[in-house]
C-alpha cells in the first residue's frame, strides 16, 4: 500500500526523563570542552577542525534525541541528510573556486590590497544622498591612515610584471599592504 501512514504512529513514542537530562548534561560538557579548547591556542586550522567536530557532535545529539530523529520515519532523516549534503556541495565547490583562482596565473588570485584601492573606494562612493554612505569616505580614510588616495587602482600588483602608468605609486603602496591581506 502506498501509505505507511495508515499503519504506524498509533501511540506516542515517549522517552524516559533521564535520557533528556543525560543529553543535556552531555551538551553542557561539550560546550565547556570547546570553550576550554579555545584558550589552549591551537593552530588555526586545527582549532577550526576541533570546534566543528564538537559542534557536529552536539548537533547530532540535539537532532537525534531532542528532535526525536532516531525513532522517526526514515524519510525525515533523509530530508535532513539531503539538505546538509546540498549545503556541503555549495560550500565545497564555491570554496574550491575561491581558493584556486590563482592556480594558473598568480595575479588572478589576487584581490586588490586594501590600501591600493583607496582610489577605487573614493571613486565608487555612492551618491551623497544615500544614508550612511556620506560618512564612509571620511572614516575609511581615518582608519586606514596609511592609505594615500592618489594610488592608482589601475596599477598592476607587484606580482604582475607589467609596468603601468601608475606603477610608481602602486609599488609605493605595496609595503603598506603588508597589513592588508589581499592575497589568498
Amino acid at each position, binding site marked *: 500500500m502506498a501509505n505507511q501512514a495508515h499503519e504506524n504512529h498509533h501511540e506516542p513514542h515517549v522517552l524516559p526523563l533521564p535520557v533528556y537530562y543525560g543529553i543535556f548534561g552531555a551538551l553542557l560538557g561539550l560546550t565547556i570542552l570547546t570553550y576550554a579548547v579555545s584558550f589552549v591556542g591551537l593552530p588555526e586550522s586545527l582549532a577550526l577542525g576541533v570546534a566543528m567536530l564538537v559542534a557536529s557532535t552536539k548537533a547530532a545529539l540535539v537532532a537525534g534525541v531532542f528532535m526525536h530523529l532516531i525513532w522517526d520515519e526514515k524519510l525525515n532523516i533523509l530530508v535532513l541528510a539531503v539538505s546538509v549534503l546540498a549545503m556541503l556541495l555549495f560550500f565545497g*565547490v564555491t570554496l574550491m573556486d575561491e581558493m584556486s583562482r590563482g592556480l594558473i596565473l598568480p595575479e588572478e588570485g589576487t584581490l586588490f590590497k586594501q590600501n591600493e584601492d583607496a582610489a577605487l573606494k573614493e571613486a565608487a562612493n555612492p551618491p551623497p544622498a544615500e544614508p550612511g554612505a556620506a560618512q564612509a569616505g571620511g572614516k575609511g580614510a581615518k582608519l586606514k591612515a596609511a592609505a594615500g588616495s592618489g594610488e592608482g587602482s589601475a596599477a598592476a600588483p607587484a606580482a604582475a610584471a607589467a609596468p603601468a602608468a601608475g606603477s610608481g605609486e602602486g609599488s609605493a603602496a605595496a609595503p603598506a599592504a603588508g597589513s592588508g591581506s589581499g592575497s589568498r
Partner: protein
Amino acid sequence: MSATTIDHSPSHAAGEHGHHDNYLVAKKGISSWIWTVDHKRLGIMYLAAVILFFIVGGLAAIAVRTELMNPTKDIMDADAYNRMFTLHGAVMVFLVIIPSIPASLGNFVLPLMLGAKDVAFPKLNLASFWVYVLGAAFFIATLVTGGVDTGWTFYTPYSIKTSSSATIALLGAFILGFSSIFTGINFLVTIHKMRAPGLTWDRLPLFVWALYATALMQVLATPVLAITLGLLVLERTIHIGIFDPVYGGDPVLFQHFFWFYSHPAVYIMIVPGFGMISELITVHSRKGIFGYKPIAISSVAIAFIGFLVWGHHLFVSSQSALAGSIFSFLTFAVAVPTAIKVFSWIATLYKGSIQYTTPMVYALSFLFLFSIGGLTGLFLGSLSVDVHLTDTYFVIAHFHYVMMGGTIIAFIGGVHHWWHKFTGKNYNEKIGVIAAIIIFVGFNVTFFTQFIFGSQGMPRRYWSYLEQYHTGHMISTYGSYLLAVGLFLALFNLLASLRNKGVAPERWRGVSLEWETATPPIEHNFESIPVVTAGPYDFPEVRAARTGNGH
C-alpha cells in the same frame, strides 16, 4: 508497472451523476475565490495570473525586438531599453515560467492524479498564492517608480550602484521565492503521503514524477536565492560589503550564490515541461511511455546533478580554471539523462495511434524545439567554445529554445490538454492547430536567426549594434511579430470557448486518475477515494494490443 487486471477503477469513482456541485459553482461570490483553499480554484487563479504576466512580459519582448529592428534608436533610448529587457526577463522568469506548470497546472491536477481530496496543506497553498501576488505587486511597483535596469540576474556591483529601483524588484523576487518554497513543500508532502490506495511509485503519472523533482529543487535551492537577494538589499541600503569590492567583498561570489539557485531554477522551469510532454505524447498517441523508469529516474537525476553545474555560467567570469573544468564535465553529465528522455519520447510514437490534436501539435513542436535547445547547449558546455559564445545572442537563442520552445510550449499544450477538465468547454480544434503552427514558425524565425548572428559575435543586452548584425536583427524582429500573432490567436481561441453553454463532451480520455472524476471536478475531487489497479498509461488500445483482440 503493468497491471494484470483490466478493471481499472471502481465505477462509482466517476461521479457524473453525483449530487455534488462542480468546483466552479460549489461556492459563490468573489470572496469564495479570494479565500478559497481548493487546489483547483487556486490552480485556475494561478493560471489567470500567469497568462496575464505572460502578456506583460511578451509586450516588453515586442518592445525590445522593435527597438532592435535598426542599430539606431527606433522607439526608445538606451536607458528605457535597459529597463525594458530587464522587465521582460524578470517577469518571464519569476512570474511566468517558474509558476507556469507547477503552480497552475500542477496545483489543479496533482491531487486529482493522486486520488487525493486536496494538497496536504490547503491553507499554505492559499498563502503561497497571495505571497506570489504580493511579490508580483512589488515587480509592478517598479514600473511606477521608474523601472529596474540590472537585467534579471542582478549582477553585482552594478546592481549595488544603479540608481534605478532595484531594491523594490529584489524584495519582490525575495517574496516570490517563498511562494515557490511553500508550493514545493506542499507538493512533496502531498506526493509522499496522500496517494490513493494502490497508487504505488511505479504507477505515478510521469507528470507527478516531474513535479516531485521540481519541488525537491524548489525546496533546496530557492532559500539560497532568498538569502542572496536579502544580502543584496542590505548591500544597497547600508552597504554591508559582501559583494562590493569597495569594502573587500567579491562580486564573483554573488554569481556563485545566484547561480546556485538559478541553475537548478532552470531545471525548476524545464522539468515540469518534461512531465507535461510525457502526458501529452502518451494520451494523444494512445501508447504507454517508452521506458517509464528511465524517464522517471532521469527527472530526479537531473534534479540532483542540476545542483552541481551552476559554474558553467561563470567560465569567463574569473572563476578558476579548475572549477570551470569540473563544472564543464558535470554539465555534459547532465546532458545524458536529458538525451535519454528525448529518445524515449520519440520511441513512444512508434506503433502509436497519433492524432493531430492541438496538444499533440504542441508536443511535437516541443520535441523539435527542445532538441535544438539541448544540442546547442553542447556548444555552451564546451569550455573553449563557450568562451566565444557566452554573453552573445547564441546564449539568448539557446535558452529561449529551452525555456520558451520547451517550457512555455509544453505549458500551452498542457492548458489545451486539460482545458476541458478545467472548464468543461471545448475550444475550436482547427484554430488551435493553426495557432500552434504559427507559433512554431514564428518562434524559429525569431530565435534561429539569433544563433547565427550570436555566433558571429553579437553581444547580448545591446541597445545598438554594429552594422554587420543588422539583417539578422531585422529577420528576428519580424519573426517575433509572427510569434505574437500566434500566441494571441491561441489565447482568443481558448477564451472564446468559455462562451459556449453547458458541458461539452470529452474529446480524449486518459486513464490516469484525473480523468476518473467528473468534468469539471466536484469540490472534493472524488465521490469516494478511488483504488488504483493499473499503470497511468494503460489505455484500452494498449490492452487491446496485449490481449490480441484489437478490432
